[in-house]
């Protein structure tokens, strides 16, 4: 079983994977541990889960964590209102005396009861409070949870591959970290970035790629920027350049940067960047 799974993950069609990360993903799958990914926004934490799902040919279930979320929301929901309505009017196909028919699975629940193994992405865990995080890890550790309304324990049929992402600079709680493997996705270097661009824009010429990368890394060096442009911004930016019929490479060589708004998402950052670009021109 281990041998089967191990080394199966080698990267997907739209995701450039470095050796380190591939190794860590494979070890986490083999050890049956959740993998916690941190890193600058836009470095492909979420994309990794999609890539794993595609590569391992498993369906992906995404749990987008929200600040107001309670753990039980992620596990299951008991639809009391429908049941009340059905009991009043009695025109439903469901059996009102059977509560189980009114239990809906949440995202974690879905991953547990599924007949095949799933990839479960728990996105932006840092948005929720620490209790949520710790309780959730209990569930993922035990691979089971109770539905109190019907006094039933749901156990995972197949242990899902769990990927957790966090944007937080601050560390998560110790018990949480103790149960995860950890990786920090560093910002890709120029060579890796060239590969990433190659994957996304296979027909982009070498010259254009080089010019874009050069401009992009120069822009990342600007000081006084709160949210530096990341891979996601670069890809969108190249997309914008490609869509513009008037765009010429010579613009970049002259130090001009069209569409800075694609790269900088904060108005204060945009202001700083526009000023710096104007100075360089």
């Amino acid at each position: 079983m281990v041998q089967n799974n191990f080394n199966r993950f080698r990267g997907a069609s739209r995701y450039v994977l470095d050796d380190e990360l591939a190794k860590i993903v494979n070890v986490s799958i083999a050890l049956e541990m959740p993998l916690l990914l941190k890193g600058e926004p836009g470095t492909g934490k979420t994309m990794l889960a999609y890539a794993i799902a595609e590569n391992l040919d498993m369906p992906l279930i995404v749990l987008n964590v929200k600040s107001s979320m309670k753990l039980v929301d992620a596990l299951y929901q008991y639809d009391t209102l429908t049941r009340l309505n059905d009991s009043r009017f009695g025109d439903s196909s469901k059996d009102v005396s059977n509560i189980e028919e009114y239990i809906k699975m949440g995202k974690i629940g879905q991953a547990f009861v599924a007949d095949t193994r799933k990839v479960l992405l728990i996105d932006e865990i840092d948005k929720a409070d620490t209790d949520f995080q710790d309780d959730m890890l209990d569930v993922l550790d035990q691979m089971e949870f109770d539905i109190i309304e019907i006094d039933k324990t749901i156990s995972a049929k197949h242990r899902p591959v769990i990927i957790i992402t966090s944007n937080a600079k601050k560390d998560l709680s110790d018990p949480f970290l103790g149960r995860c493997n950890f990786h920090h996705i560093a910002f890709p270097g120029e060579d890796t970035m060239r590969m990433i661009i190659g994957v996304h824009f296979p027909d982009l010429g070498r010259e254009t790629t080089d010019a874009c990368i050069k401009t992009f890394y120069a822009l990342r060096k600007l000081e006084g920027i709160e949210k530096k442009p990341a891979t996601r911004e670069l890809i969108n930016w190249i997309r914008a350049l490609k869509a513009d019929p008037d765009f010429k490479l010579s613009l970049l060589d002259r130090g001009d940067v069209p569409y800075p708004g694609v790269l900088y998402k904060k108005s204060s950052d945009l202001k700083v960047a526009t000023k710096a670009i104007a100075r360089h021109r």
Partner: protein
Amino acid sequence: MPGIVNEAGVQEDNILFVSFFYNLRERGIPVTPTSFLRLQRALCMGLIHSLKDFYVVARAILVKSERYFDVYDQVFAHHFEGVELPDLEDVELSEMAKLLLEEWLKNPAAVAAALDVDEKDLSKLTPEELEKYFLDRLKEQTEAHHGGNKWIGTGGTSPVGHSGYHPGGMRVGGISRNKSATKVALDRRYRDYSQEGPLTQSQIGEALKRLRRMIPSGPMDVVNVQKTIYETMRNAGEIEIIFDRRLADRLKVILMIDNGGWSMDPYIPLVQTLFDYTRNQFKDLKTYFFHNTIYDMVWSDTARYHKPELVTDFIKKDPETRIIIVGDASMAPYELMSEGGSIYFGEKKRSPSIENLRFLAQTFRHCVWLNPHSRRAWESTWTADIIRKVFPMFELTLDGLDGAVSHLMSRN
């Protein structure tokens, strides 16, 4: 490394791994025995085929924060390739010398003035010579006396902040395809993550996120199941749906900022970030300004002139309001203790400032004092020490904010 994979090899290598584990602990990485056993399991399962694999896997399993990646790299290189672990103090000094060099390139005059040397003399040196020169000067400093001269000390307006802020920005590590593990470890790609940067708005947001008090407000659009069932029964089974208001955050916060005096000047950007964040975050936020300490009045305008408010009037406010005071709490003792201690001429005083502080602390159960100086500094500041006995005092850092929030949200 075939020795790692076979069973007997695991036994032999265990000693090596155990000492690696303790070495990591000694260097301050919080590695747990559980995670160590997990690493052993990975070894036994045959998941690790080379030293490079071991480097990556051990890091993922043992080290849970990128802040420790740099130390991990150093220990790894030391342990498996016998690279000497640098003396901690030397590392810090050479980092500091590099920072000074960068500072020099930006603003030679300021550095020369701080070092008390002629700018022209230094500008003859090459960057390498300069760095060496700075390093020597720094060594001299630490050997000669601690805390005397300002420029390497932790206080004041030194050109190199003690926070270790790295102005050079993040270094970019290349791809590691063809390098050995030790090479990778020796690269120390994670050096920049190991240093604490200045607080950014999003970090403050993270720290203050727990600061909220949920009470019902807004439109009634949430079904109250309990009440609905109860009312339906009362209604003889005819469905009666009861709606409630959604829970929303309605925490009242008063922020009081010391915005006078040169001693707070270095922290203006930091306090500004805190202020911006809180202003966006809390619907019910009042901000007041004061200078050094709180007398009879605080002001809601930054100039502390137009809109004074009597501190005694604060008794009318909701006692559940959270009070956050930001200041360095350092001043002349008489400003705090004596009647008429205000340093402003013409400000008529009735009670010593310390009485006003006590009044605030008694009126509001939840108050904290955030101090941008480091904890060490306030222990040696007389007034800060007094104020600490009135308000729980926290550093204006990520950890400090965390502690402050815990205190503000505690039940008593």
